[in-house]
């Protein structure tokens, strides 16, 4: 298939790996920020290919995984409010809160719809004027622009039954949080391609400037990732920390200005709570006061008893450590014992971008 096969060519992959081997002076550690990268790395066996040269750590780039329990519990409770229809990306539906999930809520009568875009949710609001349609705003810089656009459209159309429950988060503060905590040693960061397509690769200049480490922006095909690793190896060899744009077909220095202005128009930046990382200043996106009429947090009363105490199993869940790169999934005491994709205790085992799900699915711990 054009546009993907040329990025999966085994001979080209072998040449890149040899080049990485020749360029590497000493083994180094990279964190892939993005859960999409974690899955691609496991799916194509890239970790095995780089063994001995590169140690790859998974980071916090799984939107569902970093969502705090309190938010998950609130949206599950929200789904049970009479007259509310929750619209969500599919990933969120199986994520366990402290005592339930949207899937369980749906089975007992809540109206939960899977959508592919916030604009689908907007359509649901038009088609169901008697329901309060709440779009779960989840994801990093990549997904926010369409949610922002949906709010603007809802306003233009005069819709009064469309709301967004924003849990959107920003990647830079999370990356800083991990580096500032100093729990893991990182020689470089593999930058997220889709996020950077919106923000521009220039955003990642803070890594060489403030932390003295290189970053390479990577696409999601195997050759994209290997090229980015090679660019990092070269920066390390040269002793010149820099940001390399290894995903030129998708990313520019400035990013998508239209998307950025949509987001800035609808959302403001403030502190947000992250699973595993705690509260991080200026890391969350919240609907601006002028769009309060579309803010589910303001407009819909969520039952008081939504937030439950976590069960003992849930307390043993190490998703937080996994998200910070401090622990690999198989090191969690629950992994493949109490916690499997069929019986997930924590969100990292559920999401298509979660590290635990990637390890489990592709046999990271057995092959």
């Amino acid at each position, binding site marked *: *298939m054009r546009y*993907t096969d040329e990025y*999966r060519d*085994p001979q080209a*992959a072998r040449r890149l790996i040899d080049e990485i081997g020749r360029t590497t002076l000493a083994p180094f550690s990279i964190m892939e920020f993005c859960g*999409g990268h974690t899955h691609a790395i*496991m*799916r*194509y*066996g*890239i970790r*095995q*290919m780089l063994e001995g040269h590169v140690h790859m750590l998974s980071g916090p780039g799984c*939107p*569902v995984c970093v969502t705090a329990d309190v938010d998950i519990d609130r949206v599950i409770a929200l789904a049970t409010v009479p007259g509310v229809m929750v619209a969500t*990306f*599919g*990933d*969120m*539906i*199986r994520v366990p809160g402290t005592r339930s999930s949207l899937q369980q809520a749906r089975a007992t009568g809540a109206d939960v719809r*899977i959508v*592919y875009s916030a604009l689908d949710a907007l359509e649901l609001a038009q088609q169901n004027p008697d329901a309060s349609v709440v779009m779960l705003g*989840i*994801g*990093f810089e*990549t*997904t926010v622009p369409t949610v922002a656009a949906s709010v603007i459209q809802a306003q233009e159309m005069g819709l009064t039954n469309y709301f967004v429950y924003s849990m959107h988060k920003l990647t830079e503060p999370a990356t800083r949080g991990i580096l500032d905590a100093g729990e893991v040693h990182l020689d470089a960061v593999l930058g997220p391609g*889709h996020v950077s397509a919106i923000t521009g690769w220039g955003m990642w200049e803070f890594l060489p400037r403030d932390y003295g480490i290189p970053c390479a922006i990577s696409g999601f095909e*195997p050759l994209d990732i290997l090229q980015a690793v090679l660019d990092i190896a070269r920066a390390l060899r040269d002793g010149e920390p820099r940001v390399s744009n290894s995903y030129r077909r998708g990313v520019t220095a400035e990013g998508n200005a239209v998307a950025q202005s949509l987001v800035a128009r609808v959302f403001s930046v403030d502190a947000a709570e992250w699973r595993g990382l705690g509260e991080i200043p200026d890391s969350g996106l919240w609907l601006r006061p002028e769009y309060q009429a579309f803010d589910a947090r303001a407009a819909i009363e969520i039952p008081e008893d939504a937030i439950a105490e976590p069960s003992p199993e849930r307390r043993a869940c190490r998703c937080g450590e996994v998200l910070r790169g401090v622990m690999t999934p198989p090191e969690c005491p629950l992994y493949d014992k109490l916690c*499997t*994709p*069929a019986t997930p205790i924590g969100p990292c085992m559920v*999401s*298509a*971008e979660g590290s635990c799900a990637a390890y*489990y*699915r*592709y*046999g990271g711990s*057995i*092959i």
Partner: protein
Amino acid sequence: MPQDAMSDVILMAHGSGGKLSHDLVERVFIKHLSNPILNSLEDAAAIDLTDGNGQLRGQPVFTTDSFVIQPIFFPGGDIGKLSVCGTVNDLSMQGAIPLYLSSGFILEEGLPLRDLETIVASLAVTARGAGVQVVAGDTKVVEHGSADQVFINTAGIGVVPPGVHIAAKRARPGDVVLVSGAVGDHGLAIMTQREGLRFESPLQSDCAPLNDLVRAMLDVCPDIHVLRDPTRGGLATTLNEIAEAAQTGIAIREMAVPVHEPVRAASEILGLDPLYVANEGKLIAIVPPAKAGIVLAAMRAHPLGREAAHVGGVVSDHPGRVVLETVLGTRRLLDMLVAEQLPRIC
């Protein structure tokens, strides 16, 4: 059908057992499915499993399956066609010759009669094509909202010819794994139709009865070890079921698995893996190595096996697990599907 005698939608009265029920049976079901056993309208069908000499044609096998698909009409088929293919294929995967089906309809009040007739006509054409007779049937009507348009249950009876012993546990190291064609067509056709996703080249379900393909394969190799149709959960899940039942490993080459271009493209966009997507007209065959060549040739000579491929083999390593050699030549686990595949966030 005369307008005066019948409403143009299904009413509760169509299930009452009275005049409307009778008319529905005559004017829709008998009209399309007509055969001497069904037409007798007795409470149970008398069937014949013997050959001309009064001997059983083989080991009788019996199966049942229910069909609840949405949408009921999809590119490449409809619930009527599917309800025949599913049961015929279940029988065929035992190596059986499918002979008789029953067809139980649960109709939602308000279903357009024209839709029902289209479904029954399609069911009849498919059954005739597969050489099976629908010899028993039933219709019930439930209130609007108590079912989703139409549900069909199909039971089937067939006979396994002498000398054929097909079972998942017969897979043994050294055997060759064959697939009859490209995977993922049905699931993605349904998913894109259901979600209203539009692609340039429409995806078609592969929904088809496989009994004639199986017959062609058994003609050249009665000693096929395993046959399975990778329906829900797709190729990956079915291979895992075989590996687990046989307590052997299975090794598959990703490059060797046929996938149609539109399916690959739609899967890329949706973040799905075609190896986990349902098929309704494909089979996996596990055959002794010495027979792999002739079985593959027989498959490719059949219209439903033109794209058949040798995708891997049964191994003694990693019993109970399936390992995939990726396009890059690395190896990783190919696990079972645990929950429905859901499109990713970004």
